[in-house]
């Protein structure tokens, strides 16, 4: 046995149990590929019947922006599956009592909990990234074929460098996102380790109760601003890209709002990021403690 092999096997074990982590991504890719085929089919049909006139040289917009925008649906699927995974991972094995088997192995509770967090923060985004790249290559081939048939320069703005930069930005964004969302992820882990039933109810009801209590007692809503605002500040940036994708190059000021490598990295120097990380770490430590001392339902 070596330690590296132990850790990689623990990471793979999570995918054996939680197949939704990759199946959901493949389903999204399948649906979007069908939609792309449909759209390009319609385009070719319109062109063949003369509905598209001479100079309507529709471009797919900025290459880097659309490579990232193409990942938005995948990313929502990623974040949702990661959240449900984290809510379930320390609960389901206590429910079916298999925790007794896992804890009979020489694996520390800390390593066990961290393998779950690693799965949500690194493995799941890595899977999503590979699927996104595969999807975009396949979609690119379909669009390119449609462009060749119709003679419309659909991918005229697409240069390899821009596409690669888009993918690189995406990979970095996935990891930054994992850090940004760590307080939520840690909270889900804590609820998963705590709940005797319905971890989902705990994850939602506790913050909701705190928000309501604050509203009733102080007539303020700092807690909801904190919890939802932190989410909005990240997903707002992703949305600006979606808008850019739809409006095309003419619409918004892309340098102000577009998700670029520097705008993604700028999140790393926000104090809010690291306050969130600390909160997430505290929740995770709590989950480890519960795992060690209260692992029976």
């Amino acid at each position: 046995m070596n330690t590296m092999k132990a850790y990689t096997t623990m990471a793979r074990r999570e995918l054996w149990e939680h197949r939704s982590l990759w199946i959901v991504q493949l389903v999204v890719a399948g649906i979007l590929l069908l939609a792309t085929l449909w759209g390009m089919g319609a385009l070719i049909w319109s062109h063949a019947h003369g509905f598209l006139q001479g100079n309507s040289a529709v471009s797919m917009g900025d290459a880097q922006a659309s490579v990232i925008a193409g990942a938005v649906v995948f990313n929502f699927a990623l974040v949702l599956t990661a959240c449900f995974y984290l809510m379930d991972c320390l609960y389901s094995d206590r429910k079916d009592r298999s925790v007794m088997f896992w804890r009979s192995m020489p694996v520390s509770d800390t390593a066990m909990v961290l393998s779950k967090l690693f799965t949500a923060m690194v493995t799941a985004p890595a899977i999503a990234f590979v699927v996104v790249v595969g999807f975009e290559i396949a979609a690119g081939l379909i669009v390119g074929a449609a462009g060749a048939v119709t003679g419309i320069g659909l991918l005229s703005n697409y240069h390899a460098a821009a596409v690669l930069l888009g993918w690189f930005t995406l990979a970095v964004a996935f990891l930054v996102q994992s850090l940004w969302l760590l307080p939520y992820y840690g909270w889900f882990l804590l609820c998963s380790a705590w709940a005797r039933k319905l971890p989902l109810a705990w994850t939602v009801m506790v913050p909701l109760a705190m928000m309501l209590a604050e509203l009733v007692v102080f007539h303020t809503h700092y807690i909801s601003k904190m919890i939802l605002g932190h989410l909005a500040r990240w997903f707002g940036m992703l949305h600006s890209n979606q808008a850019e994708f739809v409006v095309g190059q003419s619409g918004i000021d892309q340098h102000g709002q577009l998700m670029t490598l520097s705008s993604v990295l700028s999140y790393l120097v926000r104090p809010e990021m690291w306050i969130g990380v600390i909160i997430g770490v505290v929740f995770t430590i709590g989950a480890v403690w519960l795992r060690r001392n209260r692992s029976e339902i």
Partner: protein
Amino acid sequence: MSMLVQARGLSKNYKGLRALDKVDFDIEEGRIVGLIGPNGAGKTTALKAILGLISFDGELDVLGHDPRMGRSRLMQDVCFIADVAVLPRWLRVKHAIEYVDAVHPRFSRERALRFLERTKISQNSRVGQLSKGMVTQLHLALIMAIDARLLILDEPTLGLDILYRKEFYSNLLNDYFDDKRTILVTTHQVEEVEKLLTDLMFINNGRLVLNESMDAVAETYTEVLVAPDKAAAAQELKPIHEREIFGKKLYLFEGVSREQLAGLGELHTPSVADLFVAKMTGAAQ
């Protein structure tokens, strides 16, 4: 002989309920110890304390460690089968082997595969597709492939049919046990483990009511089938338990020599089950 487990004044309270009450015991290397007791007697609590799964009061030394510190280190030398249902339904047989192989330094993949070859379990099956008996075979194959010093079994054959139960213990004896290994087993089905055990512990209401080797048990306890006319003489020797069988009285004596009892009737070594009943009812009085 080295001591694997030493407990002194081991106690555990659950919300005012005394699950273990200042229990002392030693487990020597190379023994098979049966921990027998009614439900709620404290058996599982004692095992959990040894495994480092719960906090406790008193002193407990397991293989030179305090089990409360570093469960993961302890689990390299201690194996544990809780009961039949603890392997998760989604787990594939080959993945179970792969996982244990990766995380357990004393696991032998070859050994596990050899045990599995003798069963009908296929590598690709998920645990959920296996019968209860097969899940136990799988768990046992995983555990027996680990070169551990102490194996702890908590009701390992609960809910299994008789064929699997017999096979479970014969596999354990023939393929696993040797003088370097030690087994601590709790069970309700005393008849099944009776022939296996080298040591016997009875526990009731959190206290040990018996803690002896099987040899000592055979010397100390004698069962005598007494004809009605000698019943009064038998009563004089203060049997710890009596019951009627075919119109004769069956008395169980503790610490009375066989010479003294020889005149009263047929002498037997009591079965563990009978001894258990005698000790439990005795303890209740």
